[in-house]
């Protein structure tokens, strides 16, 4: 609306206009009445914290999700895209954050998938296909990528370039770039910027999402800021201001002080309970070192997808190979190759995805809680129902789990209470180290406060806690210390009162510019990459 006013003087008609887009997932509104106009020859950047709705907006424009209300107007028609195919046919191509590539197919086959040149309308014309693939890669300055290599064998940075070439091959009117530069080197980013300049000169339009403010300052004409699913501000060409943008992204949290009532625990003189030195997993994170003291809650902060989750996965033994570095728990070396080993060494893991990783939805609350403690509730070789229910009743009371009875299936509980049951499972015995990996995903505010109280209690009783969340505001509320991650590396540490949302973001966004892509030599299939699979529906909270 306001966008259109601004351009009414130039009388340009928008290539694409999203009007009043609203999207709900269950009870959560991911997008609320968002308008966006895109004019020929402009680069329009979207900026927002995790969960602001950027990815949902992109998914609606790409036809992956359908809006509950609102419409997308393109070339006069008003509609929304029922499938990704419809969006492509209308001239919108998307470079997806999680990459939409086929690991077994070659580079050339990937670039032109769905648009294969054919002979007599029947057989695929391999020669033309290779020629066009080579041209597209050359325009991106990536002529060195071998056209016949299966994409699964490429390092992530090259795969990202293939994904971009694939989108360009559709010759789109509107190109959506969802964090296209996250794995690219500085030189590769420069080539990408040159390509956007060329598309702009041809009168095409680009939607650009990046967490790198420097890139946005360089290439964006206009910038829209999203927060909690709403468009909270925008900058006209030349008017972008970094501090104002961060303020809009954070809203009322800006300048918010650390809750004063929380006492900041001094790091104890006791020896570390967990020591990690130079932990590296090619393509996910590198040279991660940390110390965890008993009684400490240590946060792994930064925006989503910077390798924090993978560090926690690696500690818990979810990666079977490729892990380098040293891990010590209470002075004993650990080489985690399976969760079984990690648990035996004293780790407890509370995951974000209760359904597939932590809980048995069809089993009762009791069965879930005692599953890791069956030796505690035995009488002789048999399980003792009396001992079971004594243990379970105590934990239900302690964690304030709301359920009709301990015999109802886990799946019938609310999300927050399900999460508490998963936590209760690990409370049946005291672990030296607890790992909370985005435990509040899909959990309401009340349950979250309860969960935080439990975490503090665990720390107070002498366990060390590693904590990761996609919601940055949770770190100041909970952590004694945070490590800020960017692109697989620790870029800074904050402790005590210095842990605030602005300081975390400030550390994160501070420029040394794009880092070198992590472990660029490792081969991997995208489907195997935990934490970035397409099945993860992000940004809904």
């Amino acid at each position: 609306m306001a966008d259109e006013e601004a351009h009414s003087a130039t009388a340009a008609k928008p290539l694409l206009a999203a009007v009043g887009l609203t999207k709900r997932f269950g009870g959560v509104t991911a997008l609320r009445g968002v308008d966006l106009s895109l004019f020929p020859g402009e680069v329009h950047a979207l900026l927002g914290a995790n969960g602001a709705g950027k990815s949902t907006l992109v998914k609606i424009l790409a036809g992956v999700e359908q809006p509950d209300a609102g419409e997308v107007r393109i070339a006069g028609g008003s509609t929304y895209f029922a499938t990704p195919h419809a969006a492509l046919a209308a001239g919108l191509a998307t470079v997806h954050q999680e990459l939409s590539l086929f690991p077994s197919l070659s580079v050339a086959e990937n670039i032109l998938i769905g648009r294969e040149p054919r002979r007599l309308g029947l057989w695929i014309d391999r020669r033309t296909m290779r020629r066009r693939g080579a041209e597209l890669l050359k325009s991106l300055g990536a002529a060195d990528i071998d056209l016949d290599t299966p994409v699964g064998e490429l390092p992530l940075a090259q795969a990202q370039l293939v994904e971009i070439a694939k989108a360009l091959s559709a010759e789109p009117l509107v190109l959506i770039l969802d964090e296209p530069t996250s794995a690219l080197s500085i030189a590769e980013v420069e080539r990408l910027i040159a390509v956007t300049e060329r598309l702009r000169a041809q009168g095409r339009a680009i939607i650009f999402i990046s967490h790198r403010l420097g890139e946005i300052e360089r290439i964006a004409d206009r910038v829209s800021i999203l927060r909690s699913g709403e468009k909270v501000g925008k900058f006209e060409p030349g008017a972008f201001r970094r501090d104002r943008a961060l303020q809009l992204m954070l809203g009322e949290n800006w300048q918010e002080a650390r809750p004063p009532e929380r006492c900041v625990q001094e790091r104890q003189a006791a020896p570390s309970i967990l020591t990690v030195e130079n932990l590296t997993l090619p393509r996910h994170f590198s040279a991660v070192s940390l110390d965890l003291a008993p009684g400490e809650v240590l946060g792994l902060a930064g925006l989503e997808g910077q390798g924090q989750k993978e560090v926690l996965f690696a500690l818990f033994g979810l990666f079977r190979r490729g892990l380098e570095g040293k891990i010590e728990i209470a002075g004993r070396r650990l080489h985690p190759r399976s969760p079984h080993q990690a648990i035996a060494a004293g780790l407890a893991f509370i995951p974000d995805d209760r359904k597939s990783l932590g809980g048995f939805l069809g089993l009762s609350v009791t069965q879930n809680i005692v599953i890791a403690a069956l030796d505690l509730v035995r009488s002789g070789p048999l399980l003792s129902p009396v001992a079971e229910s004594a243990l379970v009743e105590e934990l239900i009371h302690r964690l304030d789990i709301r359920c009709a009875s301990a015999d109802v299936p886990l799946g019938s509980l609310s999300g927050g209470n399900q999460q508490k049951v998963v936590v209760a499972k690990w409370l049946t015995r005291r672990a030296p180290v607890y790992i909370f990996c985005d435990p509040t995903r899909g959990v309401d505010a009340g349950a979250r406060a309860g969960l935080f109280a439990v975490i503090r209690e665990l720390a107070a009783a002498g366990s060390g806690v590693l904590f990761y969340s996609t919601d940055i505001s949770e770190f100041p509320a909970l952590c004694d210390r945070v490590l800020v991650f960017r692109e697989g590396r620790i870029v800074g540490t904050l402790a005590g009162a210095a842990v605030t949302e602005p300081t975390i973001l400030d550390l994160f966004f501070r420029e040394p510019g794009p880092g070198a892509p992590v472990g660029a030599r490792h081969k991997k299939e995208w489907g195997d990459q935990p934490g970035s699979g397409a099945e993860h529906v992000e940004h809904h909270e």
Partner: protein
Amino acid sequence: MNKSRRVLDKHAGSLSCALGLVVIIGLYALRQPLILSPFGIASLANVSVALALAAVGQTAVLLVAGLDLSIGAEITLVNCFAATTMSAGAFGIAWVVAASLLIGLAMGFLNGVVVAYGRVEPLIATFCTSFIFAGAALIILPRPGGSIPDGFAGALTGSWGPLPFSLVLLAGVVALVWLPVFTSRLGRYIVAVGDDASSARLSGLPLQRVELASYMLAGFFAAVAALFLAAETTSGDPSIGGIYTLNSLAAAVLGGVALTGGRGTVLGPILGSFVLSIILNALGVFNVSAFWQDFIEGLVLMVVLGLGGLRVLRADSWLALLRQ
């Protein structure tokens, strides 16, 4: 990985099957030299071709990360239909052949609709339809019988010097149907969908139609296999197809097709079928008791299907294993 290594990796299934084939025929010939005569070659080809056709059909479905447990029952139904309806004379043969192929496509269509549009797991869906097809076969032909005109039987099972007609049939169907599909856009889509379904959706590929097409291809090849079996036995049998379900799966895996979809060649499953058929055939020739044959056959299949698990063991993270 360099280029030659990559080509080798892709064709590892075919190459090992080709080697295995030479070794097995060599061992066979030591015991029974007649096997290298034109008659011997024709008989080896004849025991292998039906499985090869079924394996090609199974491959079309495996490539799209599906599974067809109804292939054996599809073969049975078409076989019984042909044996009860075919009459001598060009017209009597031609309409039954055409109708048989249509029945094959229709059965594949049913499988494809249930899997692609009904979102039923392929394992369950095709297991259920296999009972429908096998049941229909029993209604048409409750016990072995029916007849096949000599003209049709001779046209498929004779030989031309050392070249058996059955091999010509196999080569013809593969060259005229499977190869063009495999090298066309449809074939590329089949591989792509099996490789990564979510990427396929994001790339705008017609996911459900591709799945449907792959099951229809399986039905088509099953029908061809059934016609060949009818010609070979000159009669129909409501239990003839049973063994082809599991054997086609094993032959495809032996030939390098991944059970997880997206990987496989045209030649691999065909060579795999020859290896498997000749091993199973040799058990009979070498006087292995019929009681032991099932035992050994099961063992061989388990080893072959276990080969598919080796790939899974290479996965880097436990999460990837959980999702498979």
